[in-house]
């Protein structure tokens, strides 16, 4: 068939599977298919689709002030700085949302800090992969360059973390529920639905988040996994906080890393503060070089700009990045 013939093929006709049929025949068959519900049935279908999901996670606390950090990525210097900062600011408990390894140097150094600091940790996709002996970090990149660096990063951590540490990771819970004042917070790694679901500010719209909080029956949702921190107060008054990560800077040209402070407010509310954290980043960069980690990773620590794995960024976040 020529291009011209293809252009004119459908006059008065419709494609039904692989056949051409009179348009009216297609329309009639389509109109007869499916089901049209009554108004009551539609309301019931909507209720069923947004019903609360069962969850038996015990509730911890109540606290009046907690610190919550995301991916540590082997940054033991960042973690030490966080523990100091959180104590100085009066946090009663410190939580970590997973992704302890990858990217940075010397995985084993993070473990004693977590234990000594009584950091209440959940599993990220890194822990899930390491504990189950997976070959990769389950990040699912498609760009060959991103895949290369993800493999370097995961392989290094998999080789240098002890079997005991990995077994400990595998015993961490997948989620926690925490009371801060009168609010119940749900802590997850990616999203309540999937450990590796990305919640970026520009692709986590308000209607989606309201429904997510409804279905998971919580007053606030805390997550990480994207590497970028953000906070959205929903029209319902509830909060969604991506606490960011303390493992590498937030792709903004500064070397600070980020965590979140959550505070009970008199009257039952919740105050959310995203906190930039300075740490000895030149020392981390030097250690990464000694360990033979890629110069691309070191550059991120020293400049604050991501150099790899940028494909996960949605259009809006990507437009703000250097690479």
């Amino acid at each position: 068939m020529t291009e011209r013939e293809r252009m004119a093929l459908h006059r008065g006709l419709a494609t039904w599977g692989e056949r051409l049929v009179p348009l009216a025949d297609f329309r009639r068959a389509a109109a007869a298919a499916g089901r049209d519900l009554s108004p009551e049935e539609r309301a019931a279908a909507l209720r069923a689709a947004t019903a609360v999901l069962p969850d038996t996670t015990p509730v911890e606390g109540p606290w009046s002030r907690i610190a919550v950090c995301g991916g540590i990525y082997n940054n033991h210097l960042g973690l030490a700085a966080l523990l100091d900062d959180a104590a100085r600011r009066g946090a009663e408990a410190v939580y970590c949302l997973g992704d302890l390894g990858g990217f940075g140097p010397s995985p084993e150094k993070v473990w004693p800090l977590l234990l000594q600091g009584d950091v209440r940790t959940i599993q990220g996709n890194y822990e899930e992969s390491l504990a189950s002996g997976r070959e990769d970090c389950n990040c699912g990149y498609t760009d060959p360059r991103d895949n290369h660096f993800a493999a370097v990063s995961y392989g290094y951590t998999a080789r240098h973390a002890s079997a005991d540490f990995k077994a400990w990771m595998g015993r961490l819970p997948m989620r926690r529920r925490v009371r801060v004042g009168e609010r119940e917070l749900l802590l997850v790694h990616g999203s309540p639905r999937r450990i590796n679901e990305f919640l970026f500010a520009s692709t986590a719209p308000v209607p989606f988040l309201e429904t997510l909080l409804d279905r998971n029956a919580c007053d606030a949702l805390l997550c990480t996994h994207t590497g970028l921190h953000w906070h959205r107060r929903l029209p319902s008054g509830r909060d969604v906080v991506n606490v960011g990560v303390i493992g590498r800077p937030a792709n903004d040209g500064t070397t600070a890393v980020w965590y979140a402070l959550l505070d009970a407010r008199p009257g039952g509310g919740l105050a959310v503060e995203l906190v930039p954290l300075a740490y000895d980043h030149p020392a981390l960069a030097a250690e990464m070089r000694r360990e033979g980690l890629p110069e691309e990773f070191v550059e991120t620590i020293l400049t604050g700009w991501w150099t790899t794995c940028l494909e996960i960024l949605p259009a809006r976040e990507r437009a703000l990045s250097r690479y």
Partner: protein
Amino acid sequence: MNTLATEQLPTPGTAPGVELRALDTLWFQVAGTVCNLACTHCFVSCSPTNHTHEMLSLAAVERSLAEATALGVREVYFTGGEPFLNPEMEAILAATLKVAPATVLTNGLLLSPERAARLAALAAGSEYSLDLRVSLDGWDAESNDPIRGAGTFDRILAGVRNLAAAGLNPVLTVTDVCREASSDAGKERFFALLRGIGIDRPRLKVLPVFQIGAEAERAGAYESWQRLRAGETPEDGWDHLQCSACRMVTDQGVWVCPILVNEPAARMGSTLADALGPFALDHPACWTCHVYGVSCKT
């Protein structure tokens, strides 16, 4: 996109059913099946004369958006045909970007510098992402034009250049009709093409082809064993199929997914609420989705 090679659908009840776990992705057949091209591999058989599905009005899109926001929709995709043939397309995007991130699948022919600037302004004015996906089927006119039409390579690239000049970074979509596209070297060639026109952070998506339409004539249509059967549900369920988290709205009603809009049996009802039930994977295209893990999303 292209016609699906299929005989009559098999007896209902023999295929496994997929539940909708959440309405994450709402698709709009916003230009219907009307396109300014008639590509040989179009699996919806779009063309200037194909009115199987007609264009959607802003009012119709807003009705479905309202329904979808109550269901917690996460993202909205627009396809056709060619979305920018719809005279209300920019107003539709503006309305959508107030509630959710949006992606437009376009053939790139109607992206003038003026339109590109208006789209960039829409993107800058929203807290949600706006993505444009431009289809191309080769590195040069010689490989692309036999599939997409005479002269299209240059016109598509002009559209991409206009987007880049306005500060937008589109995702280039290539089907593996272009044989080498999925290899690392093939991807690198597309990246180089994009860098050559000033996009220093190029983005690419490679889609597998369905054994359908012209592709079916060339490579052979589906055979009878290429069907999903009851009891074949994989251990971790059907979450990898996009129909477990999407629905498609056209002017003819709500359909299960963007692939089966040429199958009347894939119409599920008039409103999204009608279409929240399970869908039986009765179509050979479902076999492709399952085996190759196809997703039309970026």
